[in-house]
């Protein structure tokens, strides 16, 4: 295996600093960073590869390591480097992720197309076989950067903490639910159709104003259990009001909620609650 990298070694390559976490330890020898040249002890390859997020990441690394413009990838060189990694990995029977093999195929294909003679006068950019790869690399690089930016954002628990004061006596207050009128009417329709009241004589129920008046009559009788019949009629309500009150009193009598009494023939009519005051207020 020939090292491809021809760049001069830098100091960073040299002895491991104590503070750094080795990302691989090979035969007792810690490796603190991704190697500068291509020669990696095969035993470290697996760890090496784990340092990458996939073939695009590995390619970006290869390009960056040689300080190449991503837009002008010397596809032949890069392909060779990439292939030699793959070959080494195969040597040690490291289970290669399918994505790496796919990328090798793509690179090989681009390389072969680059080698073919181009018809004269062709616009070079138009048909550059590298274009799609470059687009993908650029797109990946953007999000690789975005992920790093995200990592740098202030983070709850790491860079800031939400302040919280102690609260004594934290009892839960219950609030009653909201009810829509429509829901209630839906419920009514259901119960009435279940009871098969629709269509029967029950549908001829009194207008609601009669029901309302029935309630207010009973209410009055609670305060005063013995009331003159005329008292419930208010002339200002007109004929309808009188009818409503009359129907209400009739219905209440029928339902045995009130009694209408007359002490002497043609005498004063009274409406009284049949129950004793004590019962009402119990």
């Amino acid at each position, binding site marked *: 295996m020939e090292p491809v990298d021809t760049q001069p070694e830098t100091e960073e390559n040299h002895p491991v600093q104590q503070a750094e976490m080795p990302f691989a330890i090979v035969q007792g020898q810690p490796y603190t960073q991704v190697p500068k040249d291509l020669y990696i002890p095969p035993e470290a390859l697996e760890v090496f590869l784990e340092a990458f997020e996939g073939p695009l990441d590995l390619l970006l690394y290869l390009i960056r390591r040689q300080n190449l413009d991503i837009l002008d990838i010397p596809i032949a060189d890069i392909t060779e480097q990439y292939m030699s990694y793959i070959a080494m990995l195969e040597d040690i029977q490291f289970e290669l992720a399918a994505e790496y093999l796919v990328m090798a195929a793509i690179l090989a294909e681009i390389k072969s197309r680059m080698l073919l003679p181009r018809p004269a006068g062709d616009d070079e950019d138009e048909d550059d076989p590298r274009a799609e790869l470059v687009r993908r690399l650029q797109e990946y690089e953007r999000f690789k950067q975005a992920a790093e930016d995200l990592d740098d954002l202030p983070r709850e628990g790491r860079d800031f903490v939400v302040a919280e004061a102690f609260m004594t006596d934290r009892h839960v207050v219950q609030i009653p*639910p909201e009810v829509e009128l429509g829901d209630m009417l839906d419920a009514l329709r259901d119960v*009435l159709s*279940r009871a098969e009241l629709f269509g029967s004589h029950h549908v001829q129920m009194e207008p609601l104003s009669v029901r*309302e008046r029935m309630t207010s009559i009973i209410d009055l009788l609670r305060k005063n259990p013995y009331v003159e019949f005329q008292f419930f009629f208010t002339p200002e309500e007109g004929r309808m009001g009188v009818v409503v009150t009359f129907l209400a009193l009739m219905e209440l009598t029928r339902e045995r909620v009130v009694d209408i009494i007359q002490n002497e023939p043609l005498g004063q009519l009274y409406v009284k609650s049949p*129950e004793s005051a004590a019962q009402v207020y119990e």
Partner: protein
Amino acid sequence: MARIGDTARTSLKSILEAVLLASGEPLSLKAIETVFTDEERPGANDIRKALEELADDYAERGLELKEVSSGFRIQVREDTNPWVARLWEERPQRYSRALLETLALIAYRQPITRGDIEEVRGVSVRTNIIRTLQEREWIRVVGHRDVPGKPALFGTTKAFLDYFNLSSLDDLPSLAEIKDMETIEPELELETTEDG
């Protein structure tokens, strides 16, 4: 390296306030001391003094610094309880179908006894439904029917009308109208809802 007192925001008092509010639980003097490095750690007296200053700052606020058995903590003053307590109001649950049916029957057939409701619904009415409606002040006992057992007659209240934005029971759709409706039309929902 940040140092105590470099700015007002890192005065000993500010640091102690931040540490206590970040902790969310009482911190003993010992625990407070551990947030300082050995070199910078203030004496226990200095810490106590700064805590006292902090307590004084809170005199006019909705907070107080309190020493409880396990240490110091910042807590919400009782003065603000009426508001703070509403933070933990329980999310309302929806009323059951049985409750809505009972309420509707009371509204449409008042005055009505529990027995009458059971007759129409075909099932017994649980006491807690009646109680819930009474607690909500939507229904009340308006009288008693003069039959054995003197069952209570229920009717709706003014609060019921107000809640549903009705001026009288006549504003409710008639039974015939309800029967004809496929589903209850949205325009029947008299309440306007503004939430988004």
